């Protein structure tokens, strides 16, 4: 390992641990959120260092980006009556030196055992060679896409299902299904709105590009979907209220179409004697592309809906409070 590279890795490692600890022990929630978002971005760098650009994209966009937005968005409810994380209910973490020492030592010991286990891990060899050998039959050229959408498409399909389940779950948490149209329009701002106008189409384009790229390069449905969601969120922040103005029918189908079509495709070749999620080799490429397009749409819409609904939960409350 060359020195500068090692230095960079070491620095990243240190930063990651410090940020993680910071995110958990920061005195105010705001600092927690900021530390956590920084953590997510630093993690993206780590992914890049580990030759995982797909993961880096996903992490930066979903892990740090979307979740960061949600965290910051909910801060205004949590920091009501003071942002001090410990002010509301006494002490957050034990403050006594003894218990702190015990906790730190315990965590360290646990980490040491786990680290030893990793250090002693036999070389399983992984599935790199096998993936490479089967890549020509997968219909795509990028190995990660091949795994996601062909070899292990069953998992990916279920995972899109998880998004739908999570949407339903968030509906449950909010106590109603669907989106409330706000009583008054949001205060729009010319500068932000013009930025949104500029960025949104560009982001849609980037999403399409990422999607297309996924066939051969890092990128694909998830990353594209998240970029799409980011566009949606920016538009929402600019006061566009796209989701609220969609008909129920439209957003439901939008949310479900990726999952539904994936399922339909998975079974549609079974009459020909192929298995579940098995495509004719010649068609695999185009079919995967179609699946990806629809999945991107659904993912983008779902994540935007997460935000919109989430935002609405707080907004309706603040209205209730002011009344």
């Amino acid at each position, binding site marked *: 390992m060359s020195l500068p590279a090692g230095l960079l890795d070491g620095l990243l490692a240190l930063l990651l641990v410090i940020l993680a600890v910071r995110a958990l022990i920061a005195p105010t929630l705001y600092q927690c959120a900021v530390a956590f978002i920084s953590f997510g971005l630093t993690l993206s760098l780590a992914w890049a260092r580990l030759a995982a650009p797909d993961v880096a994209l996903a992490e930066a966009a979903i892990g740090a980006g979307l979740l960061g937005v949600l965290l910051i968005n909910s801060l205004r409810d949590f920091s009501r009556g003071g942002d001090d994380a410990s002010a509301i209910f006494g002490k957050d973490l034990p403050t006594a030196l003894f218990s702190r020492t015990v906790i730190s030592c315990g965590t360290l010991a646990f980490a040491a055992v786990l680290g030893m286990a990793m250090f002693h891990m036999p070389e399983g060899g992984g599935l790199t060679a*096998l993936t490479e050998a089967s890549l020509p039959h997968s219909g795509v050229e990028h190995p990660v896409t091949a795994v996601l959408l062909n*070899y292990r498409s069953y998992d990916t399909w279920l995972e899109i299902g998880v998004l739908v389940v999570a949407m339903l779950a968030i509906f449950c948490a909010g106590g109603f299904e669907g989106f409330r149209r706000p009583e008054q329009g949001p205060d729009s701002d010319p500068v932000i709105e013009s930025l949104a106008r500029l960025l949104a189409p560009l982001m849609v384009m980037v999403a399409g590009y990422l999607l297309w790229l996924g066939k051969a390069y890092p990128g694909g449905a998830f990353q594209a979907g998240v970029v799409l969601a980011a566009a949606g969120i920016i538009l929402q922040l600019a006061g566009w209220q796209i989701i609220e103005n969609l008909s129920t029918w439209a957003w439901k189908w939008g949310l479900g179409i990726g999952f539904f079509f994936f399922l339909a495709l998975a079974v549609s070749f079974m009459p020909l004697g192929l298995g579940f999620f098995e495509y004719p080799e010649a068609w695999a490429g185009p079919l995967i592309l179609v699946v990806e397009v629809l999945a991107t749409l659904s993912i983008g819409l779902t994540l935007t809906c997460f935000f919109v609904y989430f935002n609405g939960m707080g907004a309706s409350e603040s209205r209730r409070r002011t009344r």
Partner: protein
Amino acid sequence: MSALWQADNLPVWLVVWPTFGAIVLFLLPARWRGMTGVSFALANGVLALVTVFFVMEVGVLRQEIGGWAPPLGIALALDGLSALFILMTAVVGGVVSVYAKIYFTQVVVDSARSSLFWPLWLFLWAGLHGLYLANDLFNLYVVIEVIGIAAVALAVLSGKTRAMIAGLRYLIAAVAGSLAYLMGVALLYGSTGVLDIDLMAERLEPGLTTRVAIALMLGGLLVKTAVFPLHFWLPPAHSSAEPPVSAILSALVLKGTFFVILRLWTELFGVSLTFMAGQMVGVLGACAVVWGSFQALRQERLKLVVAHSSVAQIGYLFLLFPLITVPATAVAGGFEWAPLAWSGAVYQVLAHGFAKAAFFLAIGVLVMATGNDHKASMLNMVGRLPMTTFAIGLAGVSLIGLPPSGGFLAKWMLLSAIISSGQWWWVPFVLVGSLMTAGYVFMILRLAFAPSQHEAELKSVPRGLQVCALLLAVGAILIAFPAEWVIDLLEGTSTFGEVVRAGAPVNSGEVGP
């Protein structure tokens, strides 16, 4: 079209059908969901019956998804144990669906909220089917998460603050648990380079990494199965949900992760387990039996009694592991108790599934009639709601393990296995657990016979709800009779059965104390 319906595709349909139902229900408007949901549930029942008959005829079935063989692709495996769990899910789920249909249309006014039940429930069902069929560690993680999120969503469906808090606790425990599981999977993948359970079992070698991985996976799954002392999330979550949801959570969702533990323990962990590992899990189970029962005795609210009772009843399941994890020397004389222990635990799953679901549904009726689930609301119920009291009584009989009931058979088999294995130190726990169970069951029933001082007028409860509760309770009794058949199904066709029948000790290495 014949290829589409050929029997090999059965595992696929088991996953596809409820998923399809879930997405259809999601797309439908709220008012059409109830009827459609029940139809899907009943169709699931038919599918489950077909599955069971099929497994009896053909035996273990494997299906590779996407035309890619493991280790690259994912395979589904359907064996006797899966079939049995699928059948239980179908029967309990079917009755609960009918109950939910009546409950949510007649009782809960807020249809926009309560109609969320249906797509979530079908997703949960699909997840359970996926879980029973999974043969791939990462696939298991995904379905566990589907189940986890859907289960928590259902738990908070009532919209009560108490349910929300309990739900959040449940969710965080579940997420932490499944991430611990995933950490174990990562370690195992690093060690073996495969994810398929069968392939990994061939390659896995004992060692520090394997042990830590097993500990993490077990730990994570034990949290999700609510084994003492990791059960803290269960009582509030199960007691604050709507009755049909409580029934689903306790009867099916808990059993899902138990299924995973059972499967991994017998098929994957094998050589890496030591006698002490089995004993430790057994100790947790034994403590759960005593602690859960003790807590149940102390509760003032019926739903909490029943929820704590789940902790205890789950504990019995974990007495299985010390019995099938024994040093090779002890096995030299014969390992004949393993099938007994094994079918005993499975029977406990079935019995508890039926009985606990019946219990929760019956308490739902009670709450509807009296407006609360305080113990005192049971007063003089035997005269006023005889059918529901009877359901509680029958379910209680099965929980205690009195004959003739599924619970009795389960305890019979477990106790026989314990005695023949020579691990007599589990006997007191089984017995004390039974006695304490009797304590809290009859604490409830006793009140049903007692006169009440000022009797409030009962609100009328749809008869269908009472019938549903009674059906499940009668089921908990009746499952005692086809035991021979069930055990045949388990031993004759499942991969577990092969392990057990071969007489091979799960552990080949170290000898315990």
